[in-house]
């Protein structure tokens, strides 16, 4: 469905809207204290029902990531970015490491070989080898 600006079929739209806004907050595209797009702005951009967009916004507001200011709109709450990054860190193993290990096992790549591969790839990429996120 190309007219939906890249949203996918398999997940409720409200969850995808919330996920995208959360990504933007985590990446710093939406700064803390900044106003997030309104339900109607999101509806027009994604070409979706405004009630669906509102549900996505409310999901983040209920999570404390957005705060409502009456009559003005919704704003990124302070501490939102830090919380989202912490969440992502927690999910890193299940989202990235486990599938990597599963595929490695399928191909008969052992732990040592895998670690060597990771090191090799890290050297060829502009990757911060000291660890940690540069904020």
């Amino acid at each position: 469905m190309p007219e939906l600006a890249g949203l996918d079929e398999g997940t409720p739209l409200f969850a995808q809207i919330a996920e995208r806004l959360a990504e933007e907050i985590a990446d710093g595209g939406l700064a803390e204290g900044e106003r997030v797009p309104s339900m109607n702005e999101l509806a027009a951009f994604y070409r979706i029902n405004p009630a669906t967009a509102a549900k996505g916004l409310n999901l983040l507001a209920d999570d404390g990531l957005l705060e409502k200011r009456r009559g003005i709109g919704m704003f990124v709450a302070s501490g939102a970015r830090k919380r989202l990054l912490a969440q992502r860190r927690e999910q890193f193993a299940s989202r990235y490491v486990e599938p990597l290990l599963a595929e490695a096992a399928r191909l008969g790549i052992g732990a040592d070989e895998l670690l060597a591969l990771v090191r090799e790839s890290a050297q060829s990429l502009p990757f911060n080898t000291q660890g940690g996120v540069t904020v």
Partner: protein
Amino acid sequence: MTQTAISVTGLTRRYHGHRALDQVSFEVEAGSIVGLLGRNGAGKTTLLRILAGQEFPSAGSVLIHGAPPTENEAVLRRMVFVREDQVYPDFKVRHALRIASWFYPNWSPELADALLADFELPPGRAIKKLSRGMRSALGIVIGMAARAEVTLFDEPYAGLDAVARQIFYDRLLAEYAEHPRTILLSTHLIDEAAGLLERVIVIDHGRVVLTADADDLRGVASAVSGPVLAVDEFTAGRVLWDRRRVASQASVVVVGALDEADRARARSLRLELSPLTLQQLVVHAAAQQANTADTLERTSA
């Protein structure tokens, strides 16, 4: 504090012993955009005509904001019905708009002009000289500029190309944002309109087979395909709708949302997972008849 805009109870319409509508009941909340979906001949047009007071039910009742629509001018002025292949008298475009402006109390001439420009409709052109798509566009202009509290669109875009349909969806959303109203849209271009809808009502053979929040239906069923054994393993104990097999490959539709663990399992079994689009879901819902709502409810619980 939600209000009911349309309330339909036990609606039946018989034609020569054939039931075009059979015990149809549903409600539409005021200020929502609802899709009326189903195959050609499912009863969508009959239902909309009865809602618009243009046809009588054989049994059952219809209330529009609490009042029956038939021969009720107060109700009819709050409602606009744009039908597929609307027939117009021998008028020019601008005459049709002027007449509509007398009838609808909230008529917006500015919006009508803007939409005429959007759809490149010449106001001085005789309606009978318009192409099919342009006649559809005229219906859309009237339907939107009426700003009626209850707006019924019956397959409003015959002959309109993809670009013009996109204009329709975009203007509809923009108008709805500024002037919320109840919109019931029947369409067979389901996937195109899916994102605009808050709720869907699916009818088949004159019966309601599914009513649901449109967004809840995303990901509620998926096609699973791959080697027969792997498909069997993955789908054991799940509700299945459709099962096809060719040689050692199988494809089934599983009902119920899949979580991350399910998806990981499918990957490790080398299975393809693809969520059903709303259009595909409606096709299956129609094939399953009245069981659909129950099945979806059971599997999402």
